[in-house]
């Protein structure tokens, strides 16, 4: 029976892109579980399968084998439409490129997943959501009138408003300068602390990883190590070590 203590778990997750001689194994038998209310950073060299992992979890891609369990429910074999609804209703996704809809205001972007589900977001819920990310005065602004950091905060408000089982963030600070990045990371941290929001964040930045409770290192599609209570220095040292390892392997 499903394990209800975990917000998210993957078992034996494998993803192969392409076939034959040109096939790439992006994930090779990854086992991970994420307890409720925890903040995990996924790190690894470029091409190690971090984005593929998040895509498989969010149902954007279908794994070649293995299982994805969301709050104990096996969602792996769900069809396209059902996975899309799961993404809308149970998962919050924050993308490196913000993925805001350019012709919608900040508030309308935040309300979009609910609108797609045929629901409306109440005024009070919207006020709270924007206040949480410090943008209550920007509700009516279009993305083009917001800075990069503000746009990403709109995206975070959009991801959080549905109280998702898990918040997935793929390099959420990748397009931001370091000061703005720290604001965004602090925001993610506060969602974990105050809302007990289970969060999984892909990053290549040791400073960003230090905001998490735990770091998982991926190398060539495999879990190669973990670190709890990470500090930026310790993470940087571990990454350098991994780069050496992969350098030798090639």
């Amino acid at each position, binding site marked *: 029976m499903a394990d209800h203590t975990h917000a998210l778990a993957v078992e034996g997750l494998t993803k192969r892109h392409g076939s034959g001689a040109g096939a790439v194994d992006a994930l090779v038998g990854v086992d991970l579980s994420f307890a409720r209310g925890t903040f995990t950073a996924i790190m690894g060299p470029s091409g190690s399968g971090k984005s593929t992992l998040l895509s498989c979890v969010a149902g*954007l891609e279908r794994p070649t084998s293995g299982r994805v369990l969301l709050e104990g429910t096996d969602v792996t074999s769900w069809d*396209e*439409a059902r996975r*899309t*609804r799961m*993404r*809308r*209703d149970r998962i919050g*996704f924050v*993308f490196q*490129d*913000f*993925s805001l*809809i*350019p*012709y*919608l205001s900040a508030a*309308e972007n935040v309300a*979009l*997943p609910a*609108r*797609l*589900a*045929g629901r409306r977001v109440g005024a009070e819920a919207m006020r709270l959501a924007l206040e949480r990310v410090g943008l209550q005065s920007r509700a009516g602004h279009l*993305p*083009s009138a917001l800075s*990069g950091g503000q*746009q990403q905060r709109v995206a975070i408000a*959009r991801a959080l408003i549905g109280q998702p089982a898990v918040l997935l963030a793929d390099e959420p600070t990748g397009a931001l300068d370091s000061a703005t990045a720290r604001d965004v990371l602090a925001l993610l941290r506060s969602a974990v602390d105050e809302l007990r929001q289970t969060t999984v964040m892909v990053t290549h930045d040791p400073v960003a990883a230090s905001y998490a409770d735990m770091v998982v290192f991926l190398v060539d599609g495999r879990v190669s190590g973990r670190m709890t209570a990470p500090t930026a220095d310790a993470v940087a040292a571990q990454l350098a070590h991994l780069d050496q390892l992969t350098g030798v392997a090639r």
Partner: protein
Amino acid sequence: MTALALRSLRHRLPAVAATFVAALLGTAMMASFATLLESAGGASGEDQELLIIMGGVVGGWDALIVLFSVASTVGIIADQRIREASLLRTIGALPRQVRAMIVYEAAVVTVVAAAAGAAIASIGGPALFDALQRGNLITSSSTYAGGPASLLAAAGIVALVSTVAAGISSRRATRGPAAFSLRQAEVPARGLRWWRVAIGVGLVTSGLVSAVITITVTGKSDDAYAAMQTSGSASIVVGVGLATLAPLLLRLLARPLRPLLGGSGSGHLAALNTTRRAYLLAGMLAPVIVLISGAVGTLLMVGIDSRTLTAAGDPEGVGDTITTINSVVLGMVCLFAAIMVVNAGVAVVSQRRPELDRLWRLGATSDQLRTSIVMEAAMVAAIGILLGLLGSTATAVPYSIVRHEGLIPNGQLWLAPLIAGLAAVLAVGSAWGAQRRPAR
């Protein structure tokens, strides 16, 4: 940049094909009429007059539709390149270089297409001339004299208009800071430029003026065809004028229609798109207006003419032939306009691919996206029908009054719903076809 433009051409075949088809068919039609005009030089008396009317007046309406369609197709396609333009600029391409690439691409495609179109017209022109002769509209003493001059002039005009349109659109693609537009991957919403409003209003006004002149002046002339010369073009001119104003009209008219879309997720998306992104969907609306306005207006006129010709007096007994020629010409124009509706429908939906993918990632199901695209197309079709029928009255009403059928023609009113239905099927069908795989 030239090499880059050539390579990007090969990677964007559907968009290139749309420009190519518009310029090819457009030139073929325009150049065919142009050869009649050239032949008029050597013809005598009434033959000369008829050739000038066919080549100049009928060909002129035709040229208006062709040039408008080519320009708007090129415009839609240049808009598709905004993301790529921003990307090139972030890696150091100057706005000028990016603009040159877009213009160069349009120029290469249309020059090749126009040359091929002129080649088609070198067969189409003599065929048209032959048809006029066999229909006894011109005597056998006149000979076809179309040559390189008229063919090249038509091809040159098409290529020139297309290149200028690409130049104007390319400025839009490179406006503002590069990084900004990369993130938005979209032209910032903008109002219509003053010159576009001026052109639109000017065309609508001149169409209405010809309608008034038809009733007050040419309708009273002894020549039974004087009224046709002033009113025949009115619906096309008004239609093109309204089409020029399409972004504005769509925004205005879509708002009251929003409740019809319902409150579902797809209805919500469709409502947002038709109002907030009117400038994008206007590319689809414009040819629908032109098709309906031109076709319904002119067909009703031909119908009125054939019913009332005897009463109006047809001394030369050419009524039937004129009806036949009118129908052939109209058929060509309709076919062309219909192809433009499909062209624009496909181009507009393809342009939205990245945005549709983004919506899908955010949780819009493929079904929802599909439904919203069809709803948008249906909305555009409905508004296009409304405006097109309005435009068609600029020809039909004055001609009906002049030929004593009253405000409303006595027959063939079924043409309006038939053509409107056809346009709606084309608009919705092309959008449906283009969205088949909106997401992965």
